């Protein structure tokens, strides 16, 4: 009797503790965001308009601030103009595809330099549960490629096949956008649960870790640090790529539609592909930075016994909670301004 009741009650206790941990982490994350907004914000950001003219996504209409933002905006703006000019040069026969590719690539590099929800997802995922540089870079490239493919697919289906108007195009883009935020929230929720269970298990010792069910990282004999920070699963990997990369970039869509109107969709696709490569490069740098940070954290934690393990585990839970809250807030429209990419 006790043999059967034992593990199941232990598992119940573990789940209960994990729920408490997750709830505390959520509260802490909300508190941290609130505190930070008090420290940095002063007045709350003006809300972007509910309906935006000219088919602009409300996400894009979020206010910006600061001199650094001004500089990045200025540079991005010039690259965007250069990119559309390069396309026109190809159209008018005064420029070749190589110019288009180079400018597209550079635009991608700089365009990705500003923060966006995609980068937060990738960095957050790496901080919460990734350690391998190669996987971090692979996620960045996959997300950038997905972003380009979604833009190209949208234009092919909506404009070419269905002859959609700008409004129909915007509505579809908004649905894709909300889906990508929902994916971010789902990834955050799943990470939060997994990481909370791991933290709970840490408190119960190895037997409780063994009692965990349905988890993919099942080496119970592995050292605890490995258990805390090992790659979670292919599912989480895909969720990260989808959350980070499925929202198409408005610049890419406008460029493609313009190219289509000029009868040079091929050139547009080349430009967008080059852009995506540039984006991947910048995001990879951020991923590498996150991996480096994670390694530094693990190194600091190792050899400090349980306190170190707790610190890393708590940090991971908090990052997971932040991903969930940001994703949910963006998906529900409570928080705009995360999606400029």
């Amino acid at each position, binding site marked *: 009797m006790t043999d059967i009741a034992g593990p199941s009650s232990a598992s119940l206790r573990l789940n209960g503790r994990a729920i408490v941990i997750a709830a505390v982490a959520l509260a802490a994350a909300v508190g*941290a965001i609130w505190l*930070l*907004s008090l420290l*940095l914000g002063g007045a709350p*950001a003006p809300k*972007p*308009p*509910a309906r*935006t*003219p*000219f088919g*602009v996504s409300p*996400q*894009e209409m*979020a206010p*910006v*601030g*600061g*001199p650094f*933002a*001004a*500089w*990045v*905006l*200025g*540079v*991005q*703006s*010039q690259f965007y103009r250069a990119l*559309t000019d390069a396309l026109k040069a190809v159209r008018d026969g005064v420029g070749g595809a190589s110019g288009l590719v180079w400018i597209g690539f550079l635009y991608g590099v700089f*365009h990705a330099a*500003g*923060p*966006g929800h995609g980068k*937060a997802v990738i*960095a*957050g995922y790496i*901080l919460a549960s990734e350690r391998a540089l190669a996987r971090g870079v692979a996620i960045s490239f996959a997300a950038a490629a997905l972003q380009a493919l979604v833009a190209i697919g949208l234009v092919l289906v909506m*404009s070419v096949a269905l*002859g959609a108007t*700008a409004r129909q195009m915007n509505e579809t883009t908004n649905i894709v956008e909300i889906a990508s935020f929902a994916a971010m929230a789902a990834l955050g929720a799943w990470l939060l649960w997994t990481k909370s269970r791991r933290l709970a298990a840490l408190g119960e010792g190895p037997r409780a870790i063994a009692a965990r069910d349905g988890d993919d990282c099942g080496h119970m004999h592995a050292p605890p640090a490995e258990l805390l920070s090992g790659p979670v699963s292919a599912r989480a990997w895909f969720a990260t790529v989808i959350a980070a990369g499925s929202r198409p970039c*408005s*610049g890419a869509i*406008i*460029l493609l*539609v*313009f190219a289509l*109107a000029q009868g040079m969709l091929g050139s547009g696709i080349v430009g967008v592909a080059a852009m995506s490569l540039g984006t991947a490069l910048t995001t990879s740098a951020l991923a590498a930075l996150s991996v480096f940070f994670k390694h530094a*954290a693990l190194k*600091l934690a190792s050899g*400090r016994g349980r*306190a170190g393990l*707790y*610190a*890393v585990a708590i*940090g991971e839970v*908090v*990052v997971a909670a*932040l991903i969930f809250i940001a994703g949910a807030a963006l998906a529900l429209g409570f928080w705009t*301004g995360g999606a400029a990419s």
Partner: protein
Amino acid sequence: MVTGVPARLLQRLILAACALLVGVSTAFAHPHVWIVTRSEILYGPDGKIIGIRHAWTFDEEFSAYLSQGLDTNKDGKLSREELSGLAKENVESLVDSNYFTVAKANGKPVEAAAPTDYWMESDGKQLTLYYVLPLKTPVSGRVFALDVYDPSYFIAFILAEGDNAVTLKDAPKGCSVSFRRPKPIDDGVKKTLTESFFNSLAPNIDYGAQFSSRAIAACP
């Protein structure tokens, strides 16, 4: 339980996560839409300002984006009729952005009523949106300042070149218009960093305002 170095480590982890999210909250959206604006300030018979007629011309790329799928008779041209739905949609949604128009009469902001007399035209490459923005109550226009800009700077409004960018219609004798234009955007970027650095330390400042032009109509 968590003391010493691990506590600092935890602190750092949390700080990094917060920094990420703050990054998320202050998104950068560079302009994707460029609009060249021309306006006409409309005066009533009593010499008061009754409204503004805007003519906004979109850049070629965004014009292509806006007009996709609208050439319903497939003649390769966009007629006013084909663009009428788009024009209606645009002016109706503009209310939520306050028409990107900031008008002040003698220093006091004036309120706009619903647009009238709106349509869109295509010259084959670029679209232009025309509409009249009536004032809720006509104002005496000794000094009337008109700015057109998007505070979020997603749409870059550019005042048309020349002295005819803003004109006065049926204005009383002796009224004139003058302009205050920003530095050209290309060499303006560096300048923005230095000059308005201290002005823009507060987050979420009206960033777009820095690039806006102002027209001032003065009457004796």
